[in-house]
């Protein structure tokens, strides 16, 4: 039965027996993930507080850093890979990302459009909304 190849459960590290035996390589993976996440988090806080960067680009920069850190968490903590035994996990994740993007971007676009197109000028100020 050694030739039977199943998918990998989400969150499970590689099923290679030599890697499974020693936990030291597993610790290394988590430690690399932690180090990268700490660096990215520190960068996010620095970007939000520095006056060296162009203000208009800060939101975009923070979004990119958050996406990068999400990638770090997925790869190093949740062990999502591009391997063939992970296809179902990745497909489910891709569907989740699609729905999340549709909900968030769609809501923001529609509400921005409504605010811009349907309100008289004196009510444009969102601060008047309750």
């Amino acid at each position, binding site marked *: *039965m050694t*030739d*039977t*190849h*199943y*998918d*990998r*459960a*989400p*969150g*499970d590290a590689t099923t290679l027996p030599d890697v*499974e035996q020693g*936990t030291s390589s*597993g*610790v290394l993976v*988590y*430690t690399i*993930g*932690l180090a990268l996440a*700490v660096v990215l*988090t520190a960068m*996010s*806080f620095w*970007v*939000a*507080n520095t006056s060296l960067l162009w*203000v208009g680009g*800060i*939101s975009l920069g*923070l*979004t990119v850093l*958050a996406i990068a*850190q*999400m990638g770090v*968490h*997925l790869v190093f*903590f*949740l062990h999502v890979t591009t391997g*063939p*035994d992970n*296809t*179902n*996990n990745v497909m*489910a*994740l891709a*569907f*989740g990302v699609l*729905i*999340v993007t549709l*909900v*968030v971007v*769609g*809501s*923001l676009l529609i*509400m921005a459009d409504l605010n811009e197109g349907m309100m008289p000028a004196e009510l444009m100020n*969102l*601060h*008047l*909304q*309750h």
Partner: protein
Amino acid sequence: MNVNVAVMDDIRPETQLVFSEAGPAPKRIVVGYGFWIFLLSDIVMFAALFAAYAVLAHATAGGPSGAQLFNQFNVAIETGCLLASSYTCGLMSLAVGSQRRLRTYLAAAITFALGAAFLTLELREFAGMIATGATPQRSAFLSAFFTLVGCHGLHVTVGLIWLAVMMAQVAVKGFRATVERRLLCFSLFWHALDIIWVWLFTVVYLMGVIS
């Protein structure tokens, strides 16, 4: 449930069992995949709350704005607590994988302590905001804020209870297959909470302070 579809490409067919002969996937894979689907649906729910917050972030109704309320130092410590607890949770799943009881208890205790520290800081922040009149009823911005951040805090609370229950199960039942599957699901849950927090501190706290 056929979850072993895509492994044929890189393995020579003659060394490979036909899938119908391989039988259903082990329960650990089925359970883990099912919980993965649940987590993704949970993240979709958070996306709706995020969308509501992003739309209402400037609707302060003359009340306090995010830049006036948020304390970045507090948020940085909360982020550090949750990130470190995610790391120790990973170490715990390694200890579970090699069935080492003492290491499992130790890693779980540190994870629990860091999660509890996160929750304490968050509740203190909420209490401080409410004491200054920034209650959920004050403005649409604050309603959205308390819903989004409070929902994440509620998830962390549930995770802490779950972790305590799992440690009791390890103590009573030992590392049997059912307990190991539940621990796999717990670590998935805890890591997913950290991913949500990454978006939370970016969108709510950091972007709230700059605008």
